[in-house]
């Protein structure tokens, strides 16, 4: 098993951690953390799976590079929304389902 494949499997595990956290955690900041971890998992799968034969593949690398920059912009936007919610309602968790 090549090291790229090990990291691809790790990416799958991280994706599952992230998506489980995104659903189960109610604190919005934790949801943002979970969302970022989920994204990192996907990036690892993309790059790891792309070069399992051992040669570096520039295409997934370029895609992930843009993905990281977009992820931080999304995080900033999400944090702005969370702060707005906190400012107006004083709540940092989503309301429970009735």
């Amino acid at each position, binding site marked *: 098993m090549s090291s790229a494949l090990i990291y691809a*499997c790790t990416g*799958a595990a991280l*994706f*599952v951690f992230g998506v*489980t956290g995104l659903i*189960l955690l109610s604190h919005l900041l934790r949801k943002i953390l979970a969302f970022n971890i989920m994204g990192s998992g996907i990036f690892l799968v993309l790059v790891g799976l792309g070069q*399992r034969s051992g040669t570096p593949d520039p295409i997934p690398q370029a895609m992930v590079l843009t993905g990281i920059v977009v992820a931080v912009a999304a995080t*900033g936007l999400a944090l*702005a929304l969370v*702060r707005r919610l906190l400012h107006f309602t004083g709540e940092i968790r989503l309301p429970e389902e009735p």
Partner: protein
Amino acid sequence: MKNLFNALVIVLFAVLGLTLIWVILELQPPTHVHLSKQVLTQLDASGVTHPVTAVLLNFRGYDTLLEVMVLLLALLGVLAQIGKREQRNLSAWFRLSQPYLQVLLWLVRMIVPLMVLVAGYLLWVGGHQPGGAFQAGAVLAAAGVLLNLSGVLPSWAEPAWNLRTGLVFGLLVFLLVAAAVMVVASPGLLLQYPPASAGMLILLIEMGLTLSLGLILAGLFLFLSGDAIEDEAEK
């Protein structure tokens, strides 16, 4: 009930995770698509010698163009969230009278010029080695955050016209180059640089992108942290 639901979700996603890992281990490499080989054979026509930069700014330049728009949209979203407010000079976080903060200030004044130098180097080296506009922009943004945290650079309130120009500058350069290339060099084809001048055009786009990405990414932090100060000033 809630615990049962949580346990069910965890079990379901554990199964999903194991299935994903199994699929990754079983998946055979594609036999008829060789994108990375195509990149390497076409590399001479791209104007740069580093394959990742070639993919980002030449072969998939369209993606990068749209990505800059996505980043601008995210920043506009942040700006919409922090609301409208009057222009005023926001005070810095720290009072710089304490001696230990003088050390911080000195350190920042040493480091920030170095960071700008590193950003310039990363931008230039991107053509033939790892580096490029994204990394350079990130380093510039980090320098901005550092300046803000140490109290040198005040947080931003409302973007004035010069800041607005800086934010869209990279996108404008990109669009201008795309339009010029489409009209002059290869009619009807988007971002199809002529191989002879591709390297220069890519460097031009990257210079614009570095400045704008640095400002956009720094803006995400500087606008948000300014919001908190403004919040305090309301009281």
